[in-house]
């Protein structure tokens, strides 16, 4: 669906983006992450035909965005990180205006505008002036605007910045609906926990270079394969009980390291797989140790992010 090949962009001599290659299949929510200045907006602006790359190519559904920008625009819906709205225009007129800019017929425009306003839950605000909407509502309206011509690919640059938790949850719901409708979405954000819940795959950029691009499922599997086990003991069970647990653990095969970050919390790095895990649990229950919680630390995107964007 979206294919980026060796995309490079220099601002003057400053390399904002270097040799980025990426492919996103259809019907995927793809997260685009990276620290400030990593080149996310630069990439998205190139894809949205607002900027030409220094070198490299990108195509959407086989249409080259550099050589055939006019055709590509029909396939792409773009929501920039910063945008404004017009005064003296109602929500419906706002959508209608952009619909006309995309040269959509009057009936179709009306149908789309109504549908989209329902989708973004602003149906009751259709005749309100855009100016009087809150920021989060404007952001949703701008999302609707980028959908008015029924594009195949959506490029969203930090669509949830400045939204309250509820609005962000709504936004997630809307994005999931869009995926069900068959859209491909490229979304950048700095809110990592939400991203890891939402997206199917993700790319992390650092200083204009790709440092990680992976399916979220395989990333999670890879990360949790060697993630430490966390064992919480009953609060106030006494030092002896804790020592007994440590002794028990040390006797077991595959235990490489035991940490005690809190008095009643142990972290165990385990070499080996599920077999060792099961044995450990059996052993501890058999000895009647005061274990209240036993789990693998789930994948933490933030940690991954920190690791791969570390600067040497």
């Amino acid at each position, binding site marked *: 669906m979206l294919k980026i090949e060796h995309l490079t962009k220099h601002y003057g001599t400053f390399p904002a983006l270097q040799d980025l290659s990426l492919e996103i299949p259809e019907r995927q929510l793809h997260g685009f992450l990276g620290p400030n200045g990593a080149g996310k907006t630069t990439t998205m602006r190139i894809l949205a*035909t607002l*900027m*030409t790359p220094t070198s490299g190519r990108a195509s959407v559904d086989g249409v080259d965005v550099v050589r055939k920008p*006019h055709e590509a*625009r029909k396939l792409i819906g773009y929501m*920039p990180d*910063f945008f404004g709205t017009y005064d*003296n225009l109602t929500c419906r007129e706002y959508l209608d205006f952009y619909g006309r800019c*995309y040269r959509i017929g009057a009936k179709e425009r009306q149908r789309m505008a109504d549908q989209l306003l329902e989708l973004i839950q602003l149906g009751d605000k259709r005749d309100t002036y855009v100016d009087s909407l809150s920021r989060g509502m404007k952001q949703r309206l701008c999302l609707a605007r980028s959908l008015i*011509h029924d594009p195949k690919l959506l490029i969203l640059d930090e669509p949830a910045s400045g939204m309250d938790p509820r609005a962000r949850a709504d936004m997630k719901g809307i994005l999931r609906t869009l995926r069900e409708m068959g859209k491909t979405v490229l979304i950048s954000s700095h809110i990592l926990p939400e991203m890891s819940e939402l997206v199917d795959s993700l790319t992390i950029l650092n200083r204009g270079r790709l440092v990680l691009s992976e399916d979220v499922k395989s990333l999670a599997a890879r990360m949790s394969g060697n993630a430490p086990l966390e064992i919480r003991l009953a609060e106030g069970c006494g030092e002896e009980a804790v020592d007994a647990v440590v002794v028990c653990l040390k006797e077991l095969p595959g235990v490489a390291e035991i940490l005690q970050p809190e008095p009643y919390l142990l972290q165990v790095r385990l070499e080996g797989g599920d077999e060792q895990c099961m044995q450990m649990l059996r052993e501890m229950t058999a000895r009647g140790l005061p274990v209240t919680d036993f789990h693998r630390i789930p994948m933490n995107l933030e940690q991954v992010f920190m690791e791969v964007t570390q600067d040497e």
Partner: protein
Amino acid sequence: MSNPILAFSATRRMRSFRTILTVTAYAGMLLLIAILMLKGMFGTSVTIQSMQQGVRCYLILTAAQFGLLVLIGPAMTSGAIAGERERQTLELLLVTNTRSFRIASGKMLESYAMLALLIVSGMPAMCLTVVVGGVSFSQVLVSMLFLLAVAFGTVCVGVFASACCRTSVRSGVMSYRIIALIAVITALPFIFGYPRNITDVVYDSQQYAALTKDGALKMIHPLLYCNPGFGLVALLQDQTSLLSGGSLENIPGFGTATMVQRTQYQQWGRLLCTYLMMDRAGGQSIALISSGAIAVAGSVLMGIATFLIRPRRKRVIGD
């Protein structure tokens, strides 16, 4: 209206209170001038005095509109493109399938329609002079057409400047500068080319023709044809020639009887009137030619503006 930029900009403008205020102030001011100048002359028979006063009023109204359009035009268009940049809405337009020419022309036509509305709103005041006498309705229409041409020019300059700049303020300043530059450059032949030594003895074109070597009327410098201000004076002089004997300055209240009493400005005005009288083409034609020049220059500027709005352009003034 197939151009969405035109349709929606117009909708938004018409919904703003400032528009109502502008039109009211414009029409009201002209009406006030007309009523103050012509009071006591309605309902009486037409006399030579009333006709002269009517003509005077007509001249002032037309000149005032000309001045106002040159002032308002750039102010109104300065935000056409630069405002979209400031508001961060231009990119949202550029990613749609609307070409930059449609954006530029939509913005231009919308501002032009607003100026045209102002000109039309000035019609009642202009027509009062027809009632008093001295001016015919067709003359009012002709000057309205000329004003429409001038409005077109200012709007094109405004959109051009707006396409160059990052902010409306810069773009407004830039358009006034461009207009001043055009006015000065096209007036150069008059400033440097007029035969000053004979001005004080020349009263009309016949005398001038007698004084020139070959005894024939001369073409004035082509560059001067392109100056809208000269176009305006030529048009008004031509329209009022019946009452003034060919020169505006013969209308009481505009020229002065003796040369000694003339101020510097009146001296210049006289120079201009005589200069224009010498022309073979005649006042209406000069006005027509300067309208044409405005139209051509405006279109060229619009072309450049279109080029400047394209999405992938790198720099604008104010970066």
